[in-house]
């Protein structure tokens, strides 16, 4: 069973997601349902498939989704910090990932220039006066 990490910890008994989104899924048709859900998973079918990042930001920033947002599929250590910036808060690591190493990945960068789900205010609005 792949390991799920959330809030910097391993989740021993993860609850199954209520909805699994694929990269091509349209979100507008789900708009009414999104607010009623507690666990949504977004699938990353390949290492380099970046569509899930946009889906996460839309869920958080446009549809106001507040529940658990879980990245599943090809989820590797080197993806994690950017996934978190885009609004994921749970990460089902693919088989073979070193969990301890993965937990360190969230600290690779201390800042980000952009507006994102995790930090909507871009750096340039926070670095005023520097």
């Amino acid at each position, binding site marked *: 069973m792949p390991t799920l990490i959330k809030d910097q910890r391993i989740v021993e008994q993860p609850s199954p997601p209520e909805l699994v989104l694929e990269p091509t899924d349209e979100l507008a048709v789900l708009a009414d349902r999104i607010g009623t859900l507690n666990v949504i998973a977004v699938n990353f079918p390949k*290492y*380099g*498939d*970046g*569509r899930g*990042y*946009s*889906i996460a*930001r839309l869920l958080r920033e*446009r549809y106001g989704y507040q529940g658990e947002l879980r990245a599943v599929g090809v989820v*590797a250590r*080197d993806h994690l*910090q*950017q*996934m978190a*910036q*885009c609004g994921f808060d749970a990460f089902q690591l693919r088989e073979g990932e*070193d969990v301890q190493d993965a937990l360190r990945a969230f600290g*690779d*960068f*201390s*800042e*980000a*220039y*952009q*507006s*994102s789900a995790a930090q*909507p*205010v*871009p*750096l*340039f*609005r926070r*670095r*005023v006066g*520097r």
Partner: protein
Amino acid sequence: MYIYDDIDQQLVDERVAQFRDQTRRFIEGQLAEDDFRALRLRNGLYVQRYAPMLRIAIPYGLLSSKQLRKLADVARRYDRGYGHFSTRQNLQLNWPKLAEVPELLAELATVQMHAIQTSGNCVRNITADHFAGVARDEIVDSFVWCELIRQWSTFHPEFNYLPRKFKIAVNGAVADRAATFVHDIGLHALNDSEGEVGFRVIVGGGLGRTPVVGHVIREFLPWPHLLTYLDAILRVYNRHGRRDNIHKARIKILVKERGVDRFRDEVDAEWAQLKGGPATVTAEEIRRIDGRFTRPQYEQLQDVKVPDTKTPFHAWLKRNVHAHQQPGYAAVTVSLKKTGVPPGDVTSDQMERIAELADHYSFAELRVTHEQNLVLADVRQTELHGLWLELRALGLATPNIGLLTNIIACPGGDFCSLANTKSIPVAEAIQRRFDDLDYLHDIGELDLNISGCMNACGHHHVGHIGILGVDKNGEEWYQVEIGGNQGEIRPGAPASLGKVIGPSFARADVPNVIERLIETYLELRDSENERFVDVVHRAGVEPFKKYVYANLDQRPANRRAALAA
């Protein structure tokens, strides 16, 4: 130069540490080859035909002499003592060892340099017009806007795994010197009727195997909306760009398949949600970035008139020296197109000497052009002669800027594992054929571009003459196009793609073909003011084609003698 603050520096340092760790995990077998490939590529590291190739970012082509010295130093210690300036205004080293790359990057970070996003399916180095800040037809200093976009694109969490690479160019002057119509996004600054600054937004242009001239999707985007609009374009592309076929994955295919109007509607719908949000650019931020650029302290000088003496110095003044906003100053192109030297190549020794010249003559800064030359942008006119003497001694004063021998060429099959054919020997053979300077100057402005394969790194589609190497049953053949144009540098001559003149040629025939094309042009032109490309646009490909194929086998010496008679 934009000078980093502590956050800019920290992010670059953290990338070095991250890449060091990724490299370690790969070498220790914890990271699979395919995964490491995606990670190393977005840090500019390719595995090439003979050794790795590292592409070092030179954001919008702007360099300090201190940075150039560091490049000379790392090229000497980690490579074989030379580097190659690319058409994306970057520097490529061809022989570093994988295990040493993290250390090399750590050294670059000490002079505010890196290799971030110089490859991979992400937003690449932003390119700009190389006379930003000094051009007489300037609208805005494009470097300021490029830096804004550089920061926005650096580790953008949403757009780090796009369907394909993504190239943005910014042009801040009236003339388009940044080839904005052949980029994924081209931004051309302009003023509206109230004098407010904005950008014409051009999307879906590009070269490669499916060359396309881009489409204007917004005539005037007011500057505060620049980043939210870019976010909207990139989001539509990230979500809907094709990922099933690498050759159909660029944004140009999405724009083509959807149609420009539908694509624009989708971008606008996305933008409507982002517009006015926190990513809206503030005047304060533009002032902050502007204020972090070092600026030349110009003296109050008068323009100097130099009489036409018909000397080699005058030929250089005419071709390699360019008008400047500031009276008494000029911009100088340092030609990296000497016959016998691969276009864009410089040795470490040359880099160090050029750094000294930049210190002495041009406020310790220089620029890399997308035509693979260097520019000293702020030279006192009274010092041009002294500078020319020094450049000439270094072999860097070939007076060929804008002329046929100022060839753009990719590294080709001598280095690149994608290439089908060699490009450097072809460039050299053409340069040798046109070594007569008077003849070269008489031919006038002509862009000749060579790509060693259909990936088109040598921009052959937008050369006035474009040469493409093709493989036929293991043999190297060359297809010739004419009529391409990189952008509207001259009013009335917009960006265009070349048309193939006919069946391809053996390598040995290429210089003959070029000579026949030039003879056709000289025969057809109305005046010296009508350039080669203008004649192709007026008269079409047919007369060139007819003449070339009818006269291909004549030896050049006989040919010239016959013409003279």
